[in-house]
């Protein structure tokens, strides 16, 4: 399994996988924001295309703009200039409420920490986004349980986040992201708070799901150890992409 | 650095940290200050209001109705026996030996039927000596219409029923409710029919010179006030009065004066024979005459203290919440301070300082606002005349519908003290928790 991954990543290191249609297209994206008294230029003209089914890593030192880039793709934030489109929809043209709806149905998120609603159990957390999507209760329950099984946490279904380890919490977040059937899962430093072993386990799980569910993943990391698991590595430096 | 220096600079640092801590959660601190400031100002205004009400009650009772001390024959106190009179000799004796500043007014009482036109009702007669009455009570200043002058009748009201000029007419003042019952106004002539002391039926015409504001419930409903001479003429009472009312400048210590007058009266009675019926002479203070009212008036302080404590306890629970929250969310910080070598005692002191700062922050604007409200209450009063157009009668005395506050140091300090007491009490809980923090618990936060 590991060998395959390495081969795949070696092959696609310099360019998007050939023969698949683009899911995310960023053109000339810049982002400036004010932090205290200084203007920060987080992104300085990013051009990026992600193909469907990719398992890509976004790397760069802290402060290089990784989170900002993910926010743009995840419709959490708007660029100062440039264009971002996901699955053919121009995100820069959408209003707040539509962005909300867009996010709900198209994007799954796995954050660095505090991923779960603390007062809900693992199962309820996985179900939550599907509830917001307005799916029928029966389907929600089946899918939620199914994905909890997929991340091997079925026996912790009724535990609250407080009673789970960091790695378990992240896996629940992954299950939640997938259960909602998004086009794309964005993970911002999902392994940052985990020890090496748990981090590898989580990435393996994500990669497995990427292959089996044909789910597109983009995760940011500054951890060189996990890079070998990515099928494509996008490197961000000072707000610019240095790929290949 | 001497240990003393360490101590004082540490204390200064503590004060600084405590002050800073308070402003870390601006919303919470602001809210607490607003809540306690509000509570304090309301309590101060409440205290001022109650004190004012009690002062008004006391003032009414003594200045308008009861005076400070009264002298009667026992038979009059017990049965309102019209024959239980105070002989003129005794009146003179007491009057001649009054201590400086003490004033005396004689009164007589009786009943009659009063009528005007086709309306009639039972009335209570009160004979007074206008000049002396004016020195003891302020009845003369409490007229709804007309004047207090009882020297001669006012001219008849235009349109009033004509009276034969040959029949003498005497001036009277009547109660406000009585005026309503009889449909009488200033200038009307009422007829009084009574059973005189000699058993015959007395009858006379009386001009309404004035209508009294509500003061006392019986006076208001059925009172007819006249001079003692007029009273004696109607009731065929030759000598003596029923009541002597005294006022004294030292109204809070009536005891010695009561004993002095009593002794004087007893001495006189020893050398002059009192009429066989009517019993002994008895001298009583207003507190003895209307104990319920006196008790209510004296309750003012207690009521303010109890209500302050009760209401501040509710406010105190809110403070407890704020303080506990701020201590628990800072477990880690306390751990660091402990690790840096700050003793637990100092931490506790810091928490106390924080709550004192918080209370002071609330106390200053709260007191200012409360005193302002108190000032408004004292100056403009609170007008309840929409609810009580005829005033409020309580235990026989009728109070004005405009209630005024009375600001004393007590009415400001009581809620303030209660606030600080409750604050310190509420701080004990987080302080106690702080002492019990285990280092591991603290560091692990």
């Amino acid at each position, binding site marked *: 399994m590991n060998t395959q991954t390495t081969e795949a990543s070696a092959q696609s290191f310099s360019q998007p996988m050939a023969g698949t249609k683009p899911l995310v297209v960023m053109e000339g994206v810049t982002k400036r924001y004010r932090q205290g008294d200084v203007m920060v230029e987080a992104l300085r003209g990013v051009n990026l295309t992600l193909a469907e089914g990719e398992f890509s890593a976004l790397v760069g030192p802290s402060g290089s703009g990784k*989170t900002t880039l993910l926010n743009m793709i995840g419709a*959490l934030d708007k660029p100062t200039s440039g264009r971002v489109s996901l699955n053919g929809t121009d995100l820069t043209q959408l209003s707040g409420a539509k962005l*909300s*709806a867009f996010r709900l*149905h198209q994007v799954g*998120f796995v*954050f*660095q920490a*505090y*991923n779960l609603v*603390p*007062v*809900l159990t693992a199962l309820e957390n996985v179900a*939550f986004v599907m*509830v*917001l*999507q*307005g799916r029928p209760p029966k389907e929600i329950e089946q899918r939620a349980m199914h994905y909890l099984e997929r991340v091997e946490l079925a026996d912790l279904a009724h535990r609250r986040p407080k009673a789970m380890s960091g790695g378990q919490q992240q896996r629940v977040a992954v299950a939640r992201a997938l259960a909602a059937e998004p086009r794309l899962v964005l993970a911002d430093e999902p392994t940052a708070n985990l020890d090496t072993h748990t981090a590898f386990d989580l990435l393996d799980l994500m990669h497995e799901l990427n292959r089996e569910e044909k789910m597109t993943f983009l995760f940011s990391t500054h951890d060189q150890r996990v890079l070998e698991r990515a099928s494509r590595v996008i490197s961000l430096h000072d707000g610019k992409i240095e790929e290949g | 650095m001497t240990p003393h220096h360490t101590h004082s600079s540490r204390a200064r640092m503590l004060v600084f940290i405590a002050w800073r801590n308070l402003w870390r959660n601006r919303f*919470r601190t602001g*809210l607490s200050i607003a*809540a306690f400031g*509000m*509570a304090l100002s*309301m309590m101060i205004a409440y205290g001022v209001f109650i004190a004012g009400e009690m002062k008004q009650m006391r003032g009414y009772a003594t200045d308008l109705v009861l005076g400070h001390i009264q002298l009667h024959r026992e038979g009059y106190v017990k*049965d309102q026996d*019209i024959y239980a009179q105070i002989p003129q000799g005794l009146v003179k004796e007491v009057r001649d030996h009054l201590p400086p500043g003490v004033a005396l007014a004689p009164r007589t009482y009786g009943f*009659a*039927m*009063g*009528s005007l036109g*086709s*309306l*009639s*009702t*039972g009335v209570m007669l009160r004979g007074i000596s206008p000049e002396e009455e004016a020195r003891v009570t302020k009845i003369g200043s409490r007229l709804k219409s007309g004047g207090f002058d009882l020297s001669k009748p006012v001219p008849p009201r235009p349109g009033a029923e004509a009276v034969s000029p040959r029949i003498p007419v005497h001036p009277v003042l009547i109660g406000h409710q009585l005026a309503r*019952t009889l449909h009488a106004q200033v200038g009307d002539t009422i*007829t009084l*029919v009574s*059973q005189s002391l000699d*058993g015959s039926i007395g009858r006379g015409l009386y001009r309404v010179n004035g209508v009294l504001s509500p003061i006392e419930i019986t006076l208001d409903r*059925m009172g007819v006030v006249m001079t003692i001479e007029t009273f004696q003429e109607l009731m065929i009472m030759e000598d003596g009065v029923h009541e002597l009312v005294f006022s004294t400048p030292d109204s809070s210590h009536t005891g010695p004066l009561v004993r002095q007058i009593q002794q004087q009266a007893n001495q006189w009675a020893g050398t002059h024979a009192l009429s066989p019926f009517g019993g002994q002479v008895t001298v009583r203070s207003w507190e003895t005459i209307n104990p*319920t009212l006196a008790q*209510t008036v004296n309750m003012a302080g207690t009521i303010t203290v109890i209500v302050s404590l009760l209401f501040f306890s*509710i*406010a105190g*629970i*809110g403070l407890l*919440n*704020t303080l*506990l*929250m701020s201590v*628990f969310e800072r477990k880690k910080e306390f751990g660091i301070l402990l690790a840096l070598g700050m003793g637990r005692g100092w931490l506790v002191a810091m928490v106390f300082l924080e709550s004192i700062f918080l209370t002071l922050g609330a106390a200053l604007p709260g007191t200012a606002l409360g005193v302002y409200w108190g000032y408004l209450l004292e100056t403009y009063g609170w007008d*309840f005349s929409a*609810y*009580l157009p*005829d005033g*409020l*009668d*309580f*235990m026989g005395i009728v109070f004005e519908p405009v209630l005024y506050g009375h600001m004393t140091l007590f009415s400001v300090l009581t809620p303030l003290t209660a606030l600080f007491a409750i604050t310190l009490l509420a701080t004990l809980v987080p302080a106690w928790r702080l002492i019990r923090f285990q280092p591991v618990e603290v560091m692990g936060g």
Partner: protein
Amino acid sequence: MNTPDGKTPWKSLVRISWRSLWRNRRRTYITLSGISLGFALTVFFIGIGDGGHNNMIRNAVNMGDGHLTIQREGYLDAPMNHLFIAQGKQLEQQLLQAGIPGRVAPRIQLQVLASTSGNSIGAALTGIQPETDPKTNQLKKGLVTGEWLTTGDPQGVVVGARMAEKLKVKTGSKIVLMAGSEGGGTNTHLVRVRGVFRTGIEEYDSFVMISSLDMAQAFLVDEGANPAGRPVTRVAVFLDDESAMGLWKARLKALSLPAGLVVLDWQEMMPQLVSFVAFDNIGNYISLVFIFTMVAFGILNTIMMGVLERTREFGLLRALGMSPWALFTLVVMETFWLSLTALAIGWVLGGGLHAYFALWGLDMSAMYPGGMATSGTVMDSVIYSELSGARVGMLTGLILGITLLSGLYPAYRALRVTPLQALQT
């Protein structure tokens, strides 16, 4: 392709809001204790206040002229003895046939001057049916000496103990009663004391004199009444159920009563009592405002802290696709649960206080040994707490309203949380 946002996920909101409330248990407990204690205190104040007022009103109604009074128009304004109801018997019959659940008492009320050789004082002479009038119940048991009156007794009266002392009379003594007449003259009648009662209420013991209708009627006959018609000055109606007063007032008005008669309720008969209750309520309402202000601050503090420390979580909910208004609703719901729980505890505590004082009463005899006389009536020295359904509804509604209001600002703060705030480390 864009599916619109799903309907508001009520179930999730309820679940999250309820559980969030119990996340910081200590804080919630303290807040709850503050609110419920304040509320219980309010229930106690209002219960005792209402109990005292109702007690005063009942005393006034029972000692006075019933829930409803029928008398001549204008009598209230100017109680003149010639304003009598000539056909008293007929009116009584008419009222009895109406099937009023309660009692009908024909009465003659007169202001008289009572004289003996010992003294002469004003008195309120009340002529009643000695066997059936509600006054008999109250006064007969207080009889100190002598006998109660009998129907048809043309001369007998019973008097209060203080009046007896003032007039120096005992059972068998004679008293001369004098009443004013329409022409400005006077009418006098001689009566005999049959008994002396003591109630402990000064107004009663000093001023009240009870006679049979037959005795008091003599004064009306002087004014030109025909004794055959059994003239009275008023008919008092006592209802078994005081809440039916409005209904029966309307029904009695609808009867074809003789011309010139009016049906008055106790509020119209004793307007000063109505004013007093309104005045006294101001005091209760002030404490209500005070306590509720504290409650509002307590809730605002707790909910606001809960919102501020959960900015991240709200950001997450937003990032996951929850709408701002759903967050707003979430916080309002939390406030609602808090106040509902506080109300439940508050009603248990306050209800307990109320039940205790409704059963055993609040003894104020240390302050008012003989009851408190005010506004023409008396409040007993032991007060029993009373709460009407309307009061319960008002207090509950007020707390809910204030709670929800104080939840608005924190809810607004939650509404403004952006999804980006979920990502800030």
